[in-house]
C-alpha cells in the first residue's frame, strides 16, 4: 500500500513529524514501511505561467513563440510542444532553474529568436512515467483555469509529496485504506483523527428507486448491495488535488468518475463500481451465481467462461460484472456517459478469492474484498463517492439508496484485565497505561471491576480475542519497554539424542578423514531420483516421490540416493579446474512404498561420499596417489571401526557402477550400502573422470549402534603372531578366506590381517598368493607353543579343504 504523506495530512496532524520519522514510527508500532520515496526531486523557480499569446516561430514550423505571464514579469519562450496554445496555464521553468533531469535553463536564441525559459511536461518536472495520465503523457502539462499565475508548481502538483510504501500483511486489511492508516497513525502519534465529509445533499426531485431495483439470489456471498443513481454527470478530468493523490498512490488518473471511485477505494478501503446507467441494459440489478457455459466480456475485452462458483452482477438477463473483481465492457463508463449507477457492495472474501484464482484477475478491488472490508464502511463509501460526484462531475444525486441489507455490522467485544495483560507481557502496567492505548486507538470500552470490556470497531477484522488486544497494547505502548527475562520455573537437561550425537560423530570422522561436507538439493530430475539405490531398497517397492507441479524438470522428484546430486557437485568443481575432490553428505532420501502416493513416504537418513582425482599428491617427492577403490573402502572401514561396528564387504553388481569394482556393505548380514567405482559411461555423462562413491543407509546403523561402549581390559599377557601364505585360485575372495581363518582360529586367534598379495611371475597361471598374519592371544594367560601350532594347523587344513588351496613354501 502506497501512502501519500500529503494526503494523510488531511486526516491527522503531521506538522511535527517528517515522512522519514513517520515511517520509522509506523514500522516500530504496526506495519513495516519498506521505503520512503519523494515524488520528484525538489526544484525551485518553476511556476504557473499564463500563455498570453502563441504564434508560429517565423523560421521554424514546429516551434511556437509564446508570451508567458509568470506574475512579476512576462517571458518570451520558444516552445516545441504541439499542444501549447493561447490562454493555457502552464508550468514555466525560469532561466537559472535546474530541472530534475539535470538540464539547466538559460536564456538562449532558437533559430534567431530569444527564449527566456521553458514550458515543461510532467516528465520534465521529475514525475515518474508510470503515474502520468495518458491524456497528458504527450507534450506539456496544462493546469486547470483556476491555477494562480506565479504559484510554485512543486506544491500545486504535489511534487513535494513523500510516498510511504507499507508492507501490509494478511492480518491488517484495514491498513489497505487511508482511513485505516490514519487511525493507526493517530494512535501512534496520540493525535485526534479528522474524518472526511460524508454530507450529501441529494436531489429530492429524483428518487433512486424510480430508476433501479436490486435483487440478491446469493445472499451468503453478497449480504449487502447498495445502488446509487447519479444523473447528468459531465465526464472530465478530476480536480488536480485528487489526480495528484491518485498519482502518488500509484494509480493513473483517467476521468472524474473513475478517479472518484478509485479515490474512495483508497480512502475507505471499499471498492466501488460505476456502471453507465444507460448501457446497463435494464432497471434491475440481480446478483446471483454464474451458470455453466455462461460467458461475459470483461473490461479488458477478454471473454470469460463462468461457472456456478462465480458470483456475478447481472441486469436480470446477462452478467455485467464479475462481482468484486472486474466490470463488464458493455456497461463501462465512457466519455459519453451521462447517468451513473454506482455500486457499493459487500462480497464474501472466499467467493471473490475463488473467482480471482480462476481468472487470474487481481486488482485493487479484488485484493480488498479477498482480505475483508469493513461492513460499516460499505454504504458510507457510496455516499462519499456520491458527494464527490456531485461536486466534481456536476451530477445530480438521486435521493435514497436502493439496497438489500443482511450484513452483520455488529461490533465484537473482548474482555481483558490489566493483570492478565501483565502476566502475558511480563510487565507491570497500570490500568491507565492499558486504557490510554485503547483510547488512542479509538476503541470504546467499559469497566466492570477488574474487567475492561473492549468494543472492537468493525474496521479491525483482525481483533477477536484477548491476545489480539494484548498485541495492540504492547505495540502502541512500545516493545522497547519490555524487560529482558529468561523463562523461569521448569527445567530439563537439554541435549542431543543418541542418533543426533551419532550424526555429529560421523561428521567429525569424515571431516577428519579429509572429506568436505556438501549440502545438495533433495529435489532432482526424474531419472536421477531413482539411481544408485542402496541394497535395502528393493526394485519395485522403492518408488520416487514427484511434485504435482514442479518449477523445473531438474527439481521435480525427491531423491532415493544422495549420489546423483553429489556427482553434479563434482561436475561443477571439475569444470572449474578443481580436480582433486573428496566430498561427503548426510541427508534424507524419500521412499514411497506406493506407486500412487497417498501417505507420507519413508524418510531414511543416508551418508554418502564421492571422490575423484588425486587422494595424495606430494609432487617434489614424486608421491602421487589417485583415488582408487581401496581409498574409498578404507574410509568406509574407518567409519565403522570408529563406530565400533563390524561390517563385511561382498562383491556385487549394480547398475551405473563398474561391474568389477563394487562391494555391498553388510551389517549383521544385511545389505545397508555400497562402495565402488561409478561406471565410466556414467562418469562421462557427468563430465567427471574416474570417480568412487559410497552410500550407507544410516537408519540401519542407528538401530544397532551402542551409544556407550562397554569396557574391555587391556591384555596383560603377550601375544604370538604366525604368518601363512596361501596359493589360491584368482577368483577366491581374499576376504572370505580371512573370515574362515578367523572363525576356525577362534577363540585364540584375535586378529587376521592381509599383508601381501602376489600374482604374476613365478606363480602358476590363474593363481595368486595371499599372505595372512594371525595374532594369537589369551587375556588370562601366556599361550604355549604347541597349542598355537595345533590351532595353526587346523586353520591350514580348513582353508585348504574349503578353497582347494595350498600353503606357499
Amino acid at each position, binding site marked *: 500500500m502506497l501512502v501519500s504523506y500529503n494526503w494523510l495530512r488531511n486526516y491527522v496532524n503531521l506538522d511535527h513529524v517528517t515522512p522519514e520519522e513517520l515511517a520509522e514510527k509506523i514500522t516500530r508500532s504496526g506495519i513495516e514501511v519498506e521505503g520512503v520515496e519523494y515524488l520528484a526531486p525538489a526544484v525551485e523557480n518553476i511556476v504557473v505561467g499564463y500563455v498570453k499569446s502563441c504564434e508560429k516561430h517565423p523560421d521554424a514550423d514546429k516551434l511556437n513563440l509564446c508570451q508567458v505571464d509568470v506574475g512579476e514579469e512576462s517571458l518570451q519562450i520558444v516552445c516545441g510542444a504541439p499542444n501549447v496554445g493561447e490562454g493555457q496555464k502552464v508550468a514555466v521553468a525560469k532561466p537559472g532553474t535546474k530541472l530534475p533531469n539535470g538540464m539547466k535553463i538559460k536564456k538562449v536564441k532558437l533559430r534567431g529568436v530569444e527564449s527566456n525559459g521553458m514550458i515543461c511536461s510532467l516528465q520534465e518536472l521529475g514525475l515518474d512515467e508510470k503515474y502520468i495520465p495518458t491524456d497528458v503523457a504527450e507534450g506539456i502539462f496544462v493546469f486547470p483555469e483556476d491555477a494562480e499565475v506565479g504559484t510554485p508548481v512543486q506544491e500545486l502538483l504535489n511534487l513535494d509529496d513523500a510516498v510511504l510504501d507499507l508492507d501490509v500483511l494478511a492480518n491488517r486489511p484495514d491498513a489497505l485504506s487511508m482511513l485505516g492508516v490514519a487511525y493507526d497513525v493517530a494512535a501512534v502519534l496520540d493525535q485526534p483523527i479528522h474524518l472526511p465529509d460524508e454530507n450529501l445533499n441529494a436531489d429530492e426531485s429524483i428518487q433512486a428507486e424510480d430508476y433501479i431495483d436490486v435483487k440478491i439470489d446469493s445472499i451468503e456471498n453478497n449480504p449487502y448491495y447498495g445502488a446509487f443513481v447519479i444523473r447528468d454527470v459531465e465526464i472530465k478530468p478530476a480536480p488536480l488535488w485528487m489526480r495528484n493523490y491518485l498519482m502518488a498512490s500509484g494509480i493513473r488518473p483517467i476521468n472524474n468518475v473513475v478517479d472518484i471511485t478509485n479515490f474512495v477505494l483508497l480512502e475507505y478501503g471499499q471498492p466501488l463500481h460505476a456502471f453507465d446507467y444507460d448501457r446497463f441494459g435494464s432497471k434491475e440489478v440481480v446478483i446471483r451465481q454464474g451458470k455453466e457455459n455462461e460467458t461475459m466480456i470483461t473490461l479488458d475485452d477478454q471473454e470469460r467462461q463462468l461457472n456456478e462458483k462465480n458470483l456475478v452482477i447481472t441486469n436480470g438477463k446477462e452478467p455485467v460484472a464479475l462481482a468484486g473483481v472486474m466490470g463488464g465492457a458493455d456497461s463501462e463508463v465512457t466519455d459519453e456517459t451521462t447517468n451513473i449507477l454506482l455500486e457499493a457492495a459487500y462480497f464474501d472474501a472466499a467467493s471473490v478469492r475463488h473467482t480471482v484464482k480462476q481468472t487470474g484477475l487481481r486488482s485493487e478491488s479484488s485484493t480488498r474484498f479477498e482480505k475483508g472490508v469493513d461492513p460499516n464502511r460499505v454504504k458510507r463509501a457510496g455516499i462519499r463517492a456520491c458527494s464527490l460526484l456531485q461536486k466534481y462531475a456536476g451530477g445530480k444525486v438521486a435521493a435514497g439508496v436502493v439496497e438489500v441489507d443482511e450484513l452483520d455490522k455488529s461490533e465484537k467485544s473482548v474482555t481483558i484485565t490489566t493483570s492478565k495483560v501483565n502476566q502475558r507481557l511480563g510487565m507491570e502496567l497500570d490500568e491507565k497505561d492499558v486504557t490510554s492505548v485503547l483510547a488512542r486507538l479509538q476503541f470504546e470500552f467499559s469497566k466492570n471491576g477488574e474487567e475492561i470490556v473492549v468494543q472492537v470497531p468493525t474496521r479491525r477484522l483482525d481483533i477477536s480475542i484477548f491476545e489480539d488486544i494484548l498485541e495492540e497494547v504492547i505495540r502502541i505502548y512500545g516493545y522497547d519497554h519490555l524487560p529482558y527475562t529468561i523463562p523461569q520455573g521448569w527445567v530439563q537437561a537439554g541435549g542431543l539424542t543418541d542418533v543426533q550425537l551419532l550424526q555429529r560423530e560421523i561428521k567429525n570422522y569424515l571431516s577428519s578423514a579429509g572429506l568436505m561436507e556438501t549440502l545438495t538439493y533433495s529435489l532432482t530430475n526424474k531419472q536421477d531420483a531413482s539411481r544408485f539405490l542402496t541394497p535395502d531398497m528393493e526394485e519395485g517397492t522403492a518408488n520416487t516421490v514427484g511434485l*504435482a507441479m514442479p518449477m523445473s524438470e531438474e527439481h521435480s522428484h525427491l531423491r532415493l540416493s544422495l549420489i546423483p546430486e553429489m556427482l553434479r557437485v563434482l561436475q561443477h568443481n571439475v569444470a572449474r579446474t578443481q580436480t582433486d575432490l573428496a566430498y561427503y553428505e548426510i541427508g534424507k532420501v524419500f521412499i514411497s512404498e506406493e506407486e500412487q502416493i497417498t501417505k507420507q513416504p519413508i524418510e531414511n537418513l543416508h551418508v554418502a561420499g564421492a571422490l575423484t582425482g588425486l587422494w595424495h599428491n606430494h609432487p617434489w617427492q614424486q608421491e602421487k596417489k589417485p583415488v582408487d577403490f581401496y581409498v574409498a573402502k578404507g574410509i568406509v572401514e574407518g567409519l565403522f571401526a570408529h563406530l565400533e561396528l563390524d561390517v563385511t564387504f561382498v562383491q556385487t553388481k549394480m547398475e551405473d557402477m563398474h561391474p568389477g569394482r563394487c562391494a555391498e556393505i553388510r551389517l549383521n548380514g544385511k545389505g545397508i550400502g555400497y562402495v565402488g567405482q561409478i561406471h565410466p559411461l556414467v562418469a562421462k555423462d557427468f563430465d567427471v573422470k574416474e570417480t568412487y562413491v559410497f552410500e550407507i543407509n544410516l537408519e540401519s546403523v542407528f538401530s544397532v549402534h551402542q551409544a556407550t561402549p562397554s569396557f574391555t581390559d587391556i591384555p596383560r599377557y603377550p601375544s604370538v603372531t604366525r604368518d601363512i601364505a596361501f596359493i589360491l585360485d584368482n577368483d577366491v575372495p581374499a576376504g572370505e578366506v580371512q573370515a574362515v581363518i578367523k572363525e576356525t582360529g577362534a577363540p585364540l586367534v584375535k586378529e587376521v590381517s592381509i599383508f601381501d598379495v602376489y600374482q604374476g611371475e613365478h606363480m602358476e597361471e590363474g593363481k595368486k598368493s595371499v599372505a595372512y598374519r594371525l595374532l594369537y592371544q589369551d587375556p588370562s594367560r601366556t599361550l604355549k607353543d604347541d597349542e598355537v601350532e595345533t590351532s595353526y594347523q587346523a586353520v591350514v587344513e580348513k582353508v585348504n579343504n574349503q578353497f582347494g588351496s595350498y600353503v606357499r613354501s
Partner: protein
Amino acid sequence: MKEELQAIEQEALAAIEKAENSQAVQEMKVKYLGKKGSLTTVLRGMGKLSKEERPVIGELANNVRESITEALEAKTEKLEREALNEQLETETIDVTLPGNPVHVGGRHLLTSIMEEIEDLFIGMGYEVKEGPEVETDYYNFEKLNLPKNHPARDMQDTFFITNELLLRTQTSPVQARTMEAYQGKRPIKMICPGKVYRRDTDDATHSHQFRQIEGLVVDKNITLSDLKGTLDVFAKKMFGKDREIRLRPSFFPFTEPSVEMDVSCKVCNGKGCSVCKHTGWIEILGGGMVHPRVLEMSGYDSTVYSGFAFGMGQERIAMLKYGVNDIRHFYTNDVRFLSQYHQA
C-alpha cells in the same frame, strides 16, 4: 715416590688434552693405566715403603688413577660429540620445501552455524527435535492455525505432492507434532532445525530449498519478555556482545502477538549503511507468543499454559555473520567456497 706420581699425573693430563682422536686416547690409556703403564710401574715400588707411608701413597695413587680415568672419559665423550656434530651437519635438509600434505576436510558452513545455534540453546536446556520433510497439509498448515483457504497461505508458495501431501514450508510442523505428542501434559523447551522448501526461483537471495531453525517454549507463565530476553542472548552470542535487539510487530498465523526481531547493524554500529539499508538495523527472525488456538489444538489449556516460538533461516544467519553475498553458494558446493570456512 710422591713426586713421581704427581709427575705422571701432570704428564698424562697434558697428553690426554692434546690427543686428537679416539685412537690416541686409547694409547694414552695403555701408556698410563695399562699393565705395563707408568702408574703400574711406579706402584710396584710400594713394597719398599714404610708402614706409615703406604696408606698415604696408596691414596695418592688412587687419586691419580681416578683423575687420569676421568680425563680419558671426558676426552672420549668430547671427541664422540665432535664426530656426531660433524655427521649431523652433513644431514642438513631444506626446511623450506613443502611438507607431506594432509587432506583437510570439514563441515559445511551451514552445519557449523546450525550446530552453533543448537549448542547455544542446548546450553539453555532445550532439546533438539526433528520431523519429516514431506508433511501433511494438516501439520504444515491446519495445526498452525492456517485452515484451508486462509489468505495467509499465500505468504508461502508450497510444493504440493498431492492435495494432502507437501514439502514442508517451515519447520513449525515439528512444533505441532511435539505439542501433540505431549498432549498438554508437560512443559516444552525445544528447537527444531531442518530443511524446508518453497516455490521460489533460485537467485542471490532465494532458494527453493533452505534451512530453518525454530524454537518453542511452553510452560505456565511464559511471557513476551521471556522471548525478548532469550532472543537477546541468542543475538549477542551469534553476532557479538555489543549487539542490541529490537522487536517490531508482525504477523504469523500461529503466534499472537507476533514480532520481528532486528539486530543493530554490525557494519555501521547502528548509524546506517548500505548493508542495513540505512536503518541501522537488520531483520533477523520472527516470533511471538503461541496462538491460543495452536495450544488448544494440541491439548494445551491456553488459560493455564502460554508459550513463545521463534524461527529463522540458517542461511540468512550465516550470510549476515560471514558476509556471504549469494545464497546459491551454499548449494553449489564449490570447494573454493567450502574451504573458506573450515573452522567456522
